[in-house]
């Protein structure tokens, strides 16, 4: 780790000099995270606010993601140079012909989970049999369905919207949740952790790494420095956010409020802390940004089994490393 930091420092130092020398020669680029502003993307916003992109020669524009702005669409239509996407989404997109590449796999552990109330008698996977389970669309159903299959569960699937009220009111027995988001919303609606049963997919052999940084293959070919500069600045942003939580939260809250979204600091704090657990989990020995082939294959196989892709795209053409951060 020390070595990484050292190299990072050297890198930043060199870059700073070059940037200083070419202050006027910043390259314009745009970035769209795959959801609305929230601490899930704190690293990018912090890097932007702290000038890390500029330092890496990028004049960045951040486009807010959201339900009406699909990051993958923006990327493919070149409305954005960089985007974050779920690994499963990106594999499907590539399998369907989009020429995008993963230049950094940020989230190493899947945050998707199922939550049930203990009061409904659910304490282990087998208890889900015959229950009503709220699931989100598409990619969010991959792991749950694999999970049901693994434990041979017959469930009634109820489409789940953005709110958890259906679950909280008892309309479903089990709800889908992101660990860093909806799970905390449940806690902040007055449920105590000890009243809930949680099923983390990564604990059941179904770890699907989620958020990663993507660009188009042609962009990567054309301007390797730009792409790697973006990744470097983003990782620096994340590290800064993790070590300066309060400042990072201030920045995040500003962006959430600007997007006219409900915001509370406790929730953003929880989210940032969980992102740290997901991006730099202590028990997975990879440097930030790495995509492990076995993770890739696990997700891709699941997609193929579900008929969502016909062929598994080649890992090497899917994931491109930037040498600067890939030292370990």
């Amino acid at each position, binding site marked *: 780790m020390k070595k990484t930091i050292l190299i990072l420092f050297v890198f930043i130092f060199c870059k700073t000099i070059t940037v200083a020398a070419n202050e006027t020669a910043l390259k314009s680029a745009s970035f769209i995270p795959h959801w609305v502003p929230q601490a899930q993307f704190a690293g990018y916003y912090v890097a932007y606010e702290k000038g890390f992109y500029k330092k890496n020669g990028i004049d960045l524009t951040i486009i807010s993601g959201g339900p009406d702005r699909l990051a993958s669409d923006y990327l493919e239509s070149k409305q954005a140079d960089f985007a974050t996407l779920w690994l499963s989404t990106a594999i499907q997109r590539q399998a369907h012909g989009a020429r995008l590449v993963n230049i950094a796999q940020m989230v190493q552990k899947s945050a998707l989970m199922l939550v049930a109330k203990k009061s409904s008698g659910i304490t282990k996977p087998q208890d889900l049999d015959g229950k009503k389970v709220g699931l989100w669309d598409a990619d969010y159903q991959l792991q749950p369905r694999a999970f049901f299959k693994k434990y041979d569960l017959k469930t009634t699937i109820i489409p789940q919207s953005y709110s958890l009220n259906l679950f909280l009111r008892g309309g479903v027995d089990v709800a889908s949740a992101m660990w860093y988001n909806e799970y905390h919303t449940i806690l*902040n609606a007055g449920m105590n952790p000890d009243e809930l049963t949680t099923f983390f997919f990564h604990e059941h052999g179904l770890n699907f790494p989620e958020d990663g940084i993507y660009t188009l293959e042609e962009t990567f070919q054309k301007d390797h420095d730009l792409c790697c500069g973006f990744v470097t600045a983003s990782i620096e942003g994340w590290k800064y956010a993790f070590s300066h939580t309060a400042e990072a939260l201030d920045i995040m809250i500003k962006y959430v409020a600007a997007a006219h979204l409900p915001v509370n600091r406790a929730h953003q704090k929880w989210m940032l802390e969980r992102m740290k657990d997901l991006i730099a989990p202590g028990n997975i020995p990879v440097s930030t940004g790495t995509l492990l082939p076995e993770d890739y294959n696990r997700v891709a196989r699941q997609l193929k089994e579900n008929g969502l892709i016909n062929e598994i795209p080649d890992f090497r053409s899917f994931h491109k490393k930037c040498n600067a951060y890939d030292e370990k």
Partner: protein
Amino acid sequence: MKNRGIALKLILLILTSTMIIFGLIFGYNYTFSRRIIERNVEENAKNLTFTTVNKVETVLHAIEKIPENMAYFLENSSYRKNELLNLIRTVVKNNSEIYGSTISFEPYAFEKNSLYFGPYFYKSSGKIRFTWLGSESYRYFYLDWYQIPKELNHAIWSEPYYDEGGGNIIMCTYSVPFYKTISGKRQFMGIVTADVALNWLEEIVSSIKISQTGYGFLISRNGMVVTHPASDLIMNETLFSIAETRSDDRLREIGREMIQGKSGFVPIHDIVSGKKCWLYYAPLPSSGWSLGVLFPQDELMADIVHLNQTVFLLGIIGSVLLLVVIVFIARSITRPLRALARATVDIAKGNLDIEIPAIKSHDEVGRLGESFISMKRSLKQYIKELTDTTSAKERIESELKIARDIQMSILPKIFPPFPNRPEFNIYAIIEPAKEVGGDFYDFFLMDDYLYFAIGDVSGKGVPASLFMAVTTTLIKAKTGKGMLPDEILTKVNEELCVGNDTSMFVTIFCGMLNIQTGDVFYSNGGHNLPYLLYSDGGAELLENTGGMALGVMNDVKYQTKKVTLHTEDGFFLYTDGVTEATDSSENLFSDRRLKEFLQGVHDSSPTKLIQDTVGIVKNFVSGAPQADDITIMALKYLKK
């Protein structure tokens, strides 16, 4: 404390105990009044909260009735598209509280070929507008207002939400599911809703004003802050996120109680100001929301705090006043006492003329002062009397001294008394005691006869002295030529007995020495017998003549006996002052000691003999006060 003044002791003791009593009363008063206020606050809080809840509930219930009636209509009537649209429009138009309404059907439930059927009328800028709900981007089947009542099979109030189009007002939707019975089976058909703007609710809740900063707030079923004076909390924070931010587990617990539909009265810190408050909370039963009313403690306690401050201040003032009074009382006691003390110091020094300070009060101190004055007066009187008595005594004593001088002057004092008679030598002394006594001696020559006598009058003082004077005079007067001693004593006795009312008496030894022959005739009237001193040493008592003291009774017969002195023989006469001289241990000199002394005497002149005797007696008593006259007379026959 021991050595401190009365004033300080009084101040310390009285003030301390008063303070303790005051403190106890103050404490009790504070606790008790606080408890009363708390009870009142709880009662008020309860009333206020329930009144507000009822107010809200009344409105909500009225609103609930509308979609419920519509659902009832849908379930029990047949209708066409236009009728439905009219119904919704009328409902929105006629009910000012209702912001919008829809009757949305299940997929293909109303029209066989349309997935969505959701006519929606709503108010916008004062007009009734219409839109169709349902599209690829608005799949209402999966939205809370539709999905939750469908899954739960009962009507429900939604969580509050911001109406993004309608200008930032908080909305809430009451959704009622409706069904149709198809071939005996009750089948879900869709949802009727009434959207309600919550600004009236905000008005009701924000109209709750308690004291200066007390307020009401409303939270939804999820604990979401729906109304609150701190507007940035609204729709952003839940009670639980606030609790998390503040790491306030208690607030989280209270929040859970609230969303569980419980009511209660708890102390809490205001989530905005952090001030200590009481919170009363109660549920809105229809929506499952909860109303909380905060009562700022310090403001409700302001009166009581003020009261207590006043009481405390009064206590302090009272204590100061008390201090002044105690000082005054103490000084009113100690000032005269100090004056008395000063005066008594002077009195102790003997100055009885000092003025004792007058004490006007009639209390114990006053009486003490009076006692001092009367004591001083008595002392003065006593000392005056003592002075008078002393001077009287001194006068008497000087008179007595004169009397004694006179008495002594009666006795022959010139020695040798008869220088031309070498046949004998005679010497006598009286060592007088302090008090005038009645001892005497006497001698005189009549031709060749030397008469000599020694006596002792009973008692002491002037009477004894006078009696002695009378006796010596009588002895001289009654002695005739050649008269024997018994005759003399008889005659003197007769004279003394005449009119002797005082029952005084006198012992007398009387002798008559024939100078030529050495014969001595003697008679004794109750006196110590003299010793006969032989020329060759040795002494012996004369033979008694057996007569009693004179002055006791008439007709007493005295006898005369004879003894013959040879040359150098002598007589030793004395009174009981010699033998009864006592030392400090009350031992008498005694006859035995006298005889031993006299027997040891040899060839001594009368003068020397007497001086030696006096010397040995004084030596014996060794400084003890002399109680009686010591009278000694010695005679030595010298004719060859």
